[in-house]
């Protein structure tokens, strides 16, 4: 029961900060939120110990909605998958909270920031701890809401307010499918509780639904609808457009929500629903293809972006693609493993870039996120530079670091997955090459060479304060060492400890490949990682004029990538504008104003016109009225006489 406190503590912190923050707490808000989330972390460790000992905790607090045969509770399920997520969420949150103390200092919305962050942690914990789909949906929507608040944190900037709104509405498209999926689950299984739905999944294999006369496999429909939600939340094609814009939020938010935790909720959800997904090959393949295509698609865009945070954002989209690739190939634990390592190195990348932005901000640098105005920061910010390098090594998959193990496992699993798997492996490996290139490009542009800003701002450059760098160091440890729980059996007997730990929930991942093939895959990924590094080094250190030349040579390609394949513009033209214009011009202007109001006002208008004519008879002279009255009386008398 004490584990109820895990989500509750951040909620209390939120309540205190939002109610009293403005007047009383102000810049001491972190004294409320930071202890709360650290306490949650400690409790989560306790939960981990319990679960590791073999317990599965399932608490039902109370009946939430009861209606007819529909019954859903507020209740928590803490099993092995949940516990891993709990640890990731609470540990990274704790570090980012501490980092925010330094990063957000002096902001006039300081209390608000911590309130929202606490609310987010609460929602995320609800999301991972829920024991039924509706509560999962609750957390799902609530994290979206917090994301909305935090992206639009500096709401006086129009771009920030727009980005928040865009994130929320785009996510709604995904949630639309997700919600319908939940309803379909209820109608199929008669319950929304995990422990009742998953064991019963086998019994509905072969059941079909009639959609417009086509018989469609029920489980496939359910899985695809659920996946819709994941696509929205985890920014996969075609709903990826909100995540890069979400970088309008403060950097700790980008790190926590848009890299480490919230965006991985989709991965978590699909993994959670693995008993359903494994029954539908169609859904699995869809997941895998969407993941693989997203991975390479986002990586190509990241090649040419100049905004430091946007590069990392596209990198996140790409890495999430990897996770879905893994999910789709049935390697659920590999996906969770990558989720877990990714949380550390990506949070680190974001926070480190935040440190850079922070420094430039204090140096009154006018274009604090544009890499073209940076350079040579290595000598001013050695710690940041160091952790940045570590994170990059990790993400590009240099052997021994966290990213290497998880990414390699995904690629290896993909390679084993038949023809489609081989194709996806090829996509993934290519994406890895691109990843290596843009990650190093980022480092070279930011930290190497000469500072390209003004001299005035250069004078103010200095390393960030310890409250920022200490969390960076902690995360760096994670970025290096987090992968050691999943060393492949190839190198170490019982090395894949995380896979074994998650096996009761996510199933065993059995491979059918030879050692030679495995070494080949391994070698390929190491080769592309080094290859990408090498190319970046050539282009940005050895021959700095080269990028411009290439850019000029491949102008159309560059334009295509720089403008993100014009997806935003496409949506704007095909969905947003028609809806707005249609609403204003057609529906309001014609249907409502002309047709409906026309009929409604037309009838009285007709009567009105008629009575205006008729009104002339009303002279106001009573004798005329008398005359008409007498005439009427006469007619009545006449009819009575002659009808008799």
């Amino acid at each position, binding site marked *: 029961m004490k584990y109820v406190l895990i989500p509750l503590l951040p909620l209390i912190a939120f309540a205190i900060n939002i109610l009293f923050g403005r007047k009383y707490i102000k810049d001491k808000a972190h004294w409320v939120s930071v202890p709360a989330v650290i306490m949650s972390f400690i409790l989560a460790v306790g939960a981990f110990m319990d679960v590791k000992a073999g317990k599965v905790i399932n608490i039902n607090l109370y009946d939430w909605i009861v209606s007819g045969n529909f019954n859903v509770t507020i209740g928590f399920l803490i099993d092995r998958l949940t516990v891993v997520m709990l640890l990731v969420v609470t540990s990274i949150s704790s570090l980012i909270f501490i980092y925010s103390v330094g990063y957000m200092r002096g902001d006039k919305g300081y209390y608000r920031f911590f309130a929202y962050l606490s609310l987010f942690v609460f929602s995320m914990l609800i999301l991972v701890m829920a024991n039924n789909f509706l509560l999962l949906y609750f957390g799902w929507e609530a994290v979206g809401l917090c994301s909305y608040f935090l992206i639009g944190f500096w709401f006086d900037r129009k771009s920030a307010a727009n980005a928040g709104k865009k994130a929320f509405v785009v996510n709604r498209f995904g949630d639309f499918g997700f919600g319908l999926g939940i309803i379909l689950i209820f109608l199929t299984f008669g319950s929304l509780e995990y422990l009742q739905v998953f064991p019963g999944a086998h019994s509905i294999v072969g059941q079909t639904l009639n959609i417009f006369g086509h018989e469609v496999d029920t489980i496939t429909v359910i899985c695809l609808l659920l996946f819709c939600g994941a696509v929205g939340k985890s920014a996969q094609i075609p709903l990826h457009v909100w995540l890069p814009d979400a970088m309008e939020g403060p950097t700790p938010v980008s790190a926590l929500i848009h890299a480490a935790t919230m965006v991985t909720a989709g991965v978590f959800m699909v993994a959670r629903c693995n008993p359903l997904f494994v029954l539908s090959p169609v859904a699995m393949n869809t997941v895998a293809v969407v993941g693989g295509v997203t991975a390479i698609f986002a990586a190509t865009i990241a090649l040419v972006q100049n905004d430091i945070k946007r590069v990392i954002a596209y990198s996140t989209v790409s890495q999430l693609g990897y996770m879905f690739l893994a999910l789709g190939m049935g390697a659920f634990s590999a996906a969770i493993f990558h989720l877990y390592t990714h949380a550390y190195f990506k949070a680190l990348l974001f926070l480190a870039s935040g440190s850079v932005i922070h420094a430039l901000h204090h140096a009154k640098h006018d274009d604090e996120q544009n890499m073209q105005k940076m350079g040579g920061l290595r000598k001013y910010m050695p710690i940041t530079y160091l952790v940045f390098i570590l994170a990059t090594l990790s993400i590009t998959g240099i052997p021994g670091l966290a990213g290497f193990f998880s990414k390699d496992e995904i690629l290896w699993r993909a390679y084993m997955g038949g023809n489609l798997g081989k194709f996806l492996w090829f996509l993934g490996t290519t994406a890895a090459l691109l990843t290596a290139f843009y990650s190093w490009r980022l480092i070279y542009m930011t930290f190497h060479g000469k500072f390209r800003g003004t001299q005035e701002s250069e004078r103010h450059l200095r390393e960030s304060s310890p409250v920022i760098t200490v969390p960076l160091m902690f995360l760096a440890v994670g970025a290096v060492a987090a992968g050691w729980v999943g060393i492949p059996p190839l190198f170490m007997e019982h090395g894949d400890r995380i896979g074994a730990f998650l096996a009761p929930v996510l199933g065993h991942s059995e491979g059918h490949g030879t050692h030679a093939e495995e070494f080949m895959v391994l070698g390929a990924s190491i080769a592309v990682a080094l290859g990408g590094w090498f190319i970046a080094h050539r282009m940005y250190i050895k021959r700095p004029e080269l990028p411009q030349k290439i850019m000029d040579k491949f102008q159309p390609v560059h334009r295509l990538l720089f403008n993100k394949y014009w997806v935003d513009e496409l949506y704007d033209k095909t969905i947003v504008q028609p809806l707005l214009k249609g609403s204003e011009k057609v529906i309001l202007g014609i249907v409502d104003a002309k047709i409906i109001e026309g009929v409604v006002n037309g009838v009285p208008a007709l009567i009105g016109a008629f009575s205006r004519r008729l009104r002339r008879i009303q002279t*106001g*002279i*009573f004798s005329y009225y008398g005359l008409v009255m007498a005439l009427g009386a006469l007619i009545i008398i006449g009819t009575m006489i002659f009808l008799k």
Partner: protein
Amino acid sequence: MVPLSWYIVLSAIVFSIGMFGFLVRRNLIIIFLSIELMLNAVNISLVAFSHYLQSINGQILVFFVITVAAAEAAIGLAILIAFYRNKPTVEADEINLLKG
């Protein structure tokens, strides 16, 4: 003997003349006089019925009709005076406040 119907017809004729006067005269005073004429026409028939049916009720009714006629004339003429103060006319077709 004079048959009852003669009286009734006489009453009807006088009533119709009164009605004509009421409907078409412009002068309000004559319109009032026409009303009195119609009332009296009715009275004639009432008294005639009373006589021929050997019932006293008809006469009693005439009594009340005269009462009401007196009241009506008094009020009507008072209104006329009150109205005349606001708009010095007694012509029916110049009084068209009903038109609003």
